[in-house]
């Protein structure tokens, strides 16, 4: 009964897929290339087809065209009629609402996968216990789902998916609908444990910050289509449309905080209104950055010197990329670009109010 599952090997391999699906009059056509050990974030507004991409990759919904390859294995290819069922393809899916089986305790929950991959009851249990230990969830082992918080349930759902040793891990909005504290914990949890996973990970989110912090590559989706792909920094600095610019506009600085000052890895200081400590991310929107030819004088502002390296018009605004002590993206009006005479190579001062800088523990 169990040997009929031609399991996709758990050897780390990449995902190469073109997901074409039709749902009513909604047409989805998304290409995804994700290497083993890396995380791709599919970013887009609600209704962009993100969850459908995951359902198709997991085998819960059929491809109408395209293909799914995992390493050397063809998982699905309508052209040749190949289609591994959800049961056979070993793709770990973590849904947004976790969907822990209400009648199973956490250990049984995590043992569910191993149990259906040929392990005895005892083996499956001990494997589950090892996963819980590795993901620091041991204290939850005997709880039922209704005794878990939202964040705990989601971590257990991740453990449950990882316990099948999947060839591909899919996370649907892993940080949505959590309270602030749980979100911080969850973000740290994902950063730590996604790095340990050898296969490709596809995570779906509508939150730019999460995508930029967690992902190696961004896939920006709009109405069922990929509008831009690339590294988070690349997509943010060269948005190809107003839609992408609005969605992926974020300046992100990693550093060490001490009170109201964050010192970046490169040694640049960022003043923040919010006091913090330890390893943090600072984030501020390009729209809150202003550009000046002379150093502005204000104690409540951060100012950095730099040179314009890119000018990308989009919609009614222009995204200016400034390289210097700190790489900064600024959204300014076309009039401002003309007034300041900005062109690649121009020396400018970028400034942002301390109150505009948000701080997140890393």
């Amino acid at each position, binding site marked *: 009964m169990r040997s009929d599952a031609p399991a996709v090997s758990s050897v780390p391999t990449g995902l190469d897929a073109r997901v074409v699906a039709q749902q009513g009059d909604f047409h989805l056509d998304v290409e995804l290339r994700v290497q083993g050990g890396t995380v791709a974030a599919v970013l887009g507004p609600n209704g962009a087809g993100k969850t459908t991409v995951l359902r198709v990759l997991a085998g819960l919904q059929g491809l109408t065209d395209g293909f799914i390859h995992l390493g050397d294995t063809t998982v699905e290819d309508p052209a040749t009629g190949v289609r591994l069922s959800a049961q056979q393809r070993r*793709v770990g899916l973590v849904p947004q609402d976790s969907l822990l089986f209400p009648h199973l305790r956490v250990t049984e929950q995590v043992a569910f996968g191993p149990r259906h991959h040929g392990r005895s009851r005892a083996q499956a249990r001990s494997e589950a216990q090892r996963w819980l230990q590795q993901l620091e969830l041991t204290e939850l082992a005997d709880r039922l789902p209704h005794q878990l918080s939202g964040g705990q349930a989601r971590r257990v759902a991740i453990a449950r998916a990882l316990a099948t040793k999947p060839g591909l891990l899919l996370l649907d909005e892993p940080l949505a609908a959590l309270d602030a504290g749980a979100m911080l914990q969850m973000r740290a949890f994902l950063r730590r444990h996604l790095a340990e996973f050898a296969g490709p990970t596809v995570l779906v989110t509508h939150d730019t910050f999460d995508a930029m912090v967690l992902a190696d590559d961004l896939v920006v989706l709009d109405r069922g289509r990929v509008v831009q792909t690339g590294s988070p920094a690349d997509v943010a600095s060269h948005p190809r449309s107003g839609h992408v610019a609005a969605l992926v506009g974020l300046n992100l600085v990693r550093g060490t905080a001490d009170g109201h000052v964050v010192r970046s890895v490169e040694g640049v200081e960022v003043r923040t209104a919010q006091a913090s400590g330890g390893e943090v991310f600072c984030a501020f929107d390009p729209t809150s950055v202003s550009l000046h030819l002379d150093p502005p004088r204000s104690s409540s502002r951060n100012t950095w010197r730099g040179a314009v390296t890119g000018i990308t018009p989009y919609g009614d605004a222009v995204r200016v990329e400034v390289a210097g002590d700190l790489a900064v993206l600024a959204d300014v009006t076309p009039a401002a670009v003309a007034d300041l005479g900005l062109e690649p190579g121009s020396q400018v001062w970028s400034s942002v109010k301390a109150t505009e800088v948000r701080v997140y523990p890393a």
Partner: protein
Amino acid sequence: MPQTDQPIRSATGRLPWQLLVPAGAGLALLVLPVVGLLVRAPWSTLPDRIGDPGVRQALQLSLLTATSATICCVVLGAPLAWLLARTTMPGRRAVRTVITVPLVLPPVVGGVALLTAFGREGVVGQLAYDAFGFRLPFTTLGVVVAQTFVALPFLVLAVEGALRSADPRFDDIAATLGASRWQVFRRVTLPLAAPGLASGAVLAWARALGEFGATITFAGSFPGTTRTMPLAVYNALNSDFDAAILLSLVLLVVSIAVLALLRDRWLIGAAA
């Protein structure tokens, strides 16, 4: 939202007699017959009569057949409910209609129908008789079949409702974790529908225990083989009214006791 307590006050006040009178009459209709049973019961001779082998035999037979019929209902009904709730099998609406027919069919008609199918000269029964000499009517197994026939719809509808209200995405997740469709059914779908299954089984058991019309038509009334409690009550009615009351009391006590027991063990446990 209400700024004063006026809307609340208008909802109270005197209870309208137009509702009170029929409600009271309805309650009386339900309670008085039970009171009648208790008042007219032959309490003085009760200890002697309760040990009567005929009573014991009928009670044993009733418990055996009703429980067997309930097991049949679960084994046959749960998969049927799953087909109706979780697949897009063609003709599902027609199947659901067929399933509900025994609900509205007078049980006596059900018994006649069973005879035409499984009787010695029935559509299927004749084949079985010619081939193996096997005869279903007028046997204890025939009683179980008649009871299953009338009780099955209760179980199917209860389980189907439970399956419909359970999120099918749990099944999806179980599949991604490597479970086959059968394993998904056994380890996820069925446990999620357990409260519905339990209440369906209780309903089916109660229906089977009280079954009269289809049983007497299809299986007759032979002491020890097919004369279940309701049939024994009817039989006693013609000769010994006190005995009929006694049998009725026993049936009443047994069914209330079992329902109360199951309610504590299953229904409340499942809701917790």
